């Protein structure tokens, strides 16, 4: 059957339409969905979109900031309050993709894609999910664990507390090709300092599991330690705990596990700079 397009002023109406139409998908930046349609996915029969301004807004309140799900990578990179995330946003595709790809879409990107979500995970973001006419905030980690089972809800935005010290946020993406490339792996780390020790670090990986994951064993091993060879040794030893990377055309599972500690070490030792 032909493909229909439905446009709604309000996100909640869009969410409602998604819930009642089995063939409906929400159109954000289009980088994933339009490709599927071009490639012949005829299970998609309706494109739902929304012109709700909340969807594309960046709102900050105190140290908390909310990015509408329709905010693009380029908008993140250009936003004065989000300069520490610029290196992350700039590793998503080339310039055209960054002008189109959204925060919301990135939450659904399959491994080895979804590097921005890795950063959001390290910042302990919550995801605003509109299911029908009700909305709820879900911790990102929980959202990622269930995202593939819940295709009927609409993500409207992500919210997180901005680092007190933006230089405590670190990001590293390893790709085979440059400057654009899919991830061998990516690492985002928020390493707040207390004196010369790391306090409650948050580390997240991309491409090391079916979805971006938190590196909790490494976080625990790093907590209260200094960022030097000795201080990070336990974290490196625990680096791959909980990882279950895939073998794909970018890299094998063996290689990802093998080099993750190498790149984590480089990120952590580079951190004081």
């Amino acid at each position, binding site marked *: 059957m032909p493909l*229909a397009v439905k446009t709604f002023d309000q996100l909640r109406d869009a969410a409602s339409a998604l819930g009642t139409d089995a063939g409906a998908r929400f159109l954000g930046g*289009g980088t994933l969905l*339009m490709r599927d349609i*071009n*490639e012949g996915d005829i299970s998609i029969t309706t494109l739902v979109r929304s012109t709700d301004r909340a969807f594309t807004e960046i709102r900050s309140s105190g140290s908390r900031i909310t990015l509408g799900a329709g905010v693009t990578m380029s908008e993140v990179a250009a936003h004065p309050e989000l300069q520490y995330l610029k290196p992350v946003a700039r590793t998503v595709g080339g310039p055209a993709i960054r*002008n*189109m790809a959204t925060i919301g879409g990135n939450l659904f990107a399959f491994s080895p894609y979804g590097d921005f979500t890795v950063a959001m995970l390290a910042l302990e973001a919550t995801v605003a999910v509109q299911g029908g006419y009700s909305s709820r905030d879900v911790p990102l980690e929980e959202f990622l664990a269930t995202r593939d089972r819940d295709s009927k809800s609409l993500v409207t935005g992500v919210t997180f507390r901005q680092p007190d010290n933006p230089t405590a946020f670190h990001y590293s993406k390893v790709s085979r090709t440059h400057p654009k490339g899919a991830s061998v792996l990516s690492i985002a780390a928020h390493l707040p300092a207390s004196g010369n020790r790391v306090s409650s670090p948050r580390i997240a990986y991309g491409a090391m599991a079916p979805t971006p994951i938190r590196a909790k064993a490494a976080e625990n091993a790093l907590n209260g330690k200094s960022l030097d060879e000795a201080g990070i040794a336990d974290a490196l030893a625990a680096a791959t705990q909980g990882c279950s990377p895939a073998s794909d055309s970018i890299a094998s599972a063996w290689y990802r596990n093998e080099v993750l500690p190498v790149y984590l070490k480089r990120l952590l030792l580079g951190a004081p700079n």
Partner: protein
Amino acid sequence: MSQVPIQFKLNGQDKAEFIDEAATLLSVLRGKVGITSPKAGCEQGTCGTCSVLIDGELRLSCITLAQTCAGASIETVEGMDTDGKLHPLQQAFLDRFAAQCGFCTTGMLMAAKALLDKNPNPTREEVVDAISGNICRCTGYEPIIEAILDATGGSAGSYRRA
């Protein structure tokens, strides 16, 4: 498929068309308006041959829903030369022999124009980033990078072959 009306500016000229509601911008430009410089290289958003400028921003027309461009200003390579005179980027691509088969060339020019319109004096690294979403299988990229740097009048960070 139902038809919807759409108005937009194409290379400075007003256009009004009835289009399939789910049509991509690429199919509208190529099939409806007769603009063939954007190419269907992959229709996956991974090659850059369909690149156009929408309100000055580089976009991939193959994965852009056409009706989202209502009221927008769209630029393609067809609008680059003025009064028969080539745009400096086009001239630089000629002078540097930066086109071989020509299939990626129009997308490359759009990516380069998106950069130079906002940043007239980019570094080599910025040029490399600007074309990073555009695949070229013929040139090895270096002639394209050099052409874009030439069009800026500078050659910051460029290495030159002997």
